[in-house]
């Protein structure tokens, strides 16, 4: 996903002491005998983007979803990264039965999974069909809709037709009753069958996203994610939303209809989870946690300046991430400088110039950041530590090499338009890169922008890109899931066939050979077969140098001393509220 400002940055998990196997970091909260009860106090700045799981698309919303929604399959709670990214059954009894052609998935619904309606009601296959249909609703279509339209038979047609439906609760309900997704069928109350357009080794990862949550029939009374919906959520997880005030507070209380026997993943240790919003300062949040006045941060990162001091603190943990955050992208369409950036030699030269260690320092230094040399970051499928065509020993940049290569390319006096966001560390990153480029004779014209304008009026605008309003930019990218996630890394960033307004392939990179590899990887039957294609694509992309990979950020987290059994969730980049208890 595109990284929003203010939301905890960075990515995937892996136990910090990965090479050592199970060291004391393996159970950061200490484990022990669970002690139920108490109120977990969470503090942070902003509200969720959407409360409706069909459209919520930020890490904080994912962490909230984990408490009150469930999916057919999900990720287990584990501080072992490899375990934490392997899909396990959730509402489904077991992993689905897959047909011989690899295109039909049959899920059996687990008995005892109930909605907290009055009276409590068993969740059915029809609820999952409704959930998938709602993703395509015309009012608040899911941000992740393309994952489903790309894979499920008839989903694209269903989506197209749904957009013409009336944008009212009644209109939406009527359309959903009258139209079916061709490939999705409730065989009976406990059996769901999904037919794919092609084999897709990552389909279960897609079904494990919170988007694929079931929806009870009651939701048909509300406009998706509307104010009425937000006051009438129905839970099937261990907690339910007891009080929601937009931008101010979210209170989670125990869901009496949930039972432990029917949930192999979550627990219900604390009584209540009180989330208090409106605290804009990461420094203050950190002080509250250290003073024990709050237990967890909702969305504020551990302040970079506190990292050095916190090393060794039992509440402080760093989990390895998988992101390109930030990376430097070239506008291949820019007419500026006689289209110099369309020349691969110029882009390669600039790849040598950037001091990646200096940018890692901006984000807290080597423990918190991993320097990246390829188009696919570690922790994502296709990552290849051997593909590092522009690596400079020490990763500190080589301006002399850059100068030589620019001279060989016959380019001099480059002046690059370089928009940057004024929020967070973006201005520092821009200054650091501009300084590196200056050393190899390239002038940067830094343009201050708001976060929205940065994408809307520069990087993601087709017209502005073609006009040359920007030449280079420093966006960030966080995959929507880890492991088998080429669909969430290579496709959005490097598949040139879908370049359009709002594209995340900002530079309009388009290489038919890479596109062909993408198709092969997506339709490969197994993850290992897909991995080979993704690796090939990675090498090919780096030869074209449409970006300068810089760093993958690891995730520093902190919890108060009361928090026990803190298990980190890679998907939401926070400790899983359904695993911990208070000491």
């Amino acid at each position, binding site marked *: 996903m595109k990284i929003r400002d203010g939301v905890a940055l960075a990515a995937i998990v892996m136990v910090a002491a990965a090479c050592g196997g199970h060291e004391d970091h393996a159970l950061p909260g200490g484990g022990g005998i669970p002690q139920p009860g108490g109120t977990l106090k969470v503090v942070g700045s902003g509200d969720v983007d959407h409360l409706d799981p069909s459209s919520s698309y930020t890490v904080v919303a994912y962490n909230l979803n984990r408490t009150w929604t469930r999916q057919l399959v999900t990720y287990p709670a584990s501080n072992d990264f490899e375990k934490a990214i392997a899909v396990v059954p959730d509402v489904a009894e077991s992993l689905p039965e897959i047909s011989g052609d690899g295109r039909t998935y049959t899920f059996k619904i687990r008995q005892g999974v109930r909605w907290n309606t009055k009276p409590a009601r068993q969740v059915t296959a029809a609820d999952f069909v409704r959930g998938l249909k709602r993703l395509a609703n015309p009012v608040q279509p899911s941000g992740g809709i393309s994952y489903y339209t790309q894979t499920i038979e008839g989903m694209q047609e269903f989506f197209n037709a749904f957009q013409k439906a009336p944008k009212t609760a009644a209109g939406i309900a009527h359309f959903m009753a009258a139209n079916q997704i061709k490939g999705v069928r409730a065989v009976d109350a406990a059996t769901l069958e999904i037919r794919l357009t092609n084999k897709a080794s990552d389909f279960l990862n897609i079904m494990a996203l919170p988007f694929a949550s079931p929806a009870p029939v009651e939701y048909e009374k509300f406009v998706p994610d509307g104010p009425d919906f937000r006051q009438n959520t129905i839970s099937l997880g261990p907690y339910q939303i007891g009080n929601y005030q937009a931008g101010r507070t979210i209170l989670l209380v125990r869901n009496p209809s949930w039972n432990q026997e029917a949930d192999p993943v979550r627990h219900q240790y604390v009584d209540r989870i009180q989330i208090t919003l409106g605290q804009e300062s990461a420094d203050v949040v950190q002080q509250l946690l250290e003073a024990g006045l709050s237990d967890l941060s909702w969305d504020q990162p551990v302040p970079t300046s506190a990292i050095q001091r916190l090393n060794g603190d039992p509440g402080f943990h760093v989990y390895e991430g998988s992101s390109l955050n930030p990376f430097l992208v070239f506008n291949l369409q820019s007419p500026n400088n006689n289209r110099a950036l369309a020349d691969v030699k110029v882009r390669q030269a600039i790849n040598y110039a950037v001091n990646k260690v200096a940018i890692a320092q901006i984000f807290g*230094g080597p423990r918190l950041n991993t320097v990246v040399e390829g188009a696919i970051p570690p922790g994502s499928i296709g990552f290849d530590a051997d593909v590092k065509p522009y690596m400079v020993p020490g990763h*500190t940049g080589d301006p002399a090499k850059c100068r030589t290569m620019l001279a060989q390319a016959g380019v001099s006096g480059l002046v690059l338009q370089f928009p940057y966001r004024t929020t967070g560390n973006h201005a520092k990153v821009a*200054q*650091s890169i501009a300084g590196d480029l200056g050393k190899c004779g390239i002038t940067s014209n830094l343009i*201050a922008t708001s976060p929205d304008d940065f994408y809307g009026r520069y990087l993601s605008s087709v017209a502005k890109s073609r006009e040359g309003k920007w030449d280079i930019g420093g966006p960030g990218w966080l995959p929507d899931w880890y492991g088998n996630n080429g669909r969430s890394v290579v496709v959005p960033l490097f598949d040139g066939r879908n370049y359009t307004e709002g594209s995340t392939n900002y530079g309009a990179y388009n290489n038919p050979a890479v596109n062909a590899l993408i198709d092969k990887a997506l339709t490969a039957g197994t993850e290992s077969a897909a991995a080979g294609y993704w690796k090939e694509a990675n090498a090919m992309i780096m030869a074209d140098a449409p970006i300068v990979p810089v760093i993958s950020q690891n995730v520093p987290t902190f919890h108060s001393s009361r928090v026990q059994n803190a298990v980190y969730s890679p998907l939401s980049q926070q400790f899983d509220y359904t695993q911990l208890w208070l000491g």
Partner: protein
Amino acid sequence: MSLTDASAEAEHVPEEAPAVRGKGPWRLAWERLARDRAAMVSLGVIAVIVLLALLAPVFAAITGHDPQAQFPETGLTPEGLPVGPGSDFWLGADSLGRDLFIRILYGARISLLVGLLSTLLATVFGIVAGMVAGFYGGWVDGVLARVLDVVLSFPYLLVAIVLVAALGASVPLMIFVIAFFSFAAMARVVRGQTIAYKEREFIEAARSMGAGKVRTMFVDVVPNLIAPVTVLATLLIPTSIVFEATLSFLGLGVDPRTASWGAILADSVDFYRVAPGLLVFPALMLLLTTLSFNLLGDGIRDALDPRSDRLLPGK
């Protein structure tokens, strides 16, 4: 602060002229100013700051640190924290490993440039607008006075943010924005003074001798405005400097690579606990500069207008 009596200020008193000689009003004002210890100290501080700003390139050459050069290896810890004061970085480094001392000196250039130029611009506009409004009266005054009211009632920071966001940050734009929001205060004072003066006898005398309106304005009225305008301008300078620092603090000032006190202060927000110098030094400079200009402005007002009562006994 309290000021002691004249005996302690003997060294500031200019030597008495041996022969009896008429003293002009400016000389008298200077003598009064010279006896004002706070104003004189302020003048000295301002002179030192100006000198430091002028000598910034010399210090950059001595330390070998260009104001924009980043030294991530020597200026930062591996975790990215700025190093403290030392022989290499005299006042420490900032969060990108740039020399804080050098950047503060270059920041003084920006502050003084913006402060002085925008005040000059505001003064010129203010005098013209205020004098035209006051002298012509009638509908001209009505229109101009309302325009000034509108400008004065603007939420100036918001407008400045919008303008900078729309047009891009640059020093000339900053000077213009600050001048635009400062000139109204100046124009109001000038208008009031002009209205008061234009009924006085010496203006009538000039008119009766056939002087035109423009001539009367510039030859007869302007000299009488110098005192209030000088005072107000001196007090506008620190306001402009703070305004520039505010915009830079918000990331809307000059190019982020250009050293500016406001930008350094913004940088310190994340690091003041581990690198207090990042907060203390630019804040101290900002405080010293604005305080000096304010005290000097106070002193000038007292010197030019001996009838006014002083808040603090200075002589």
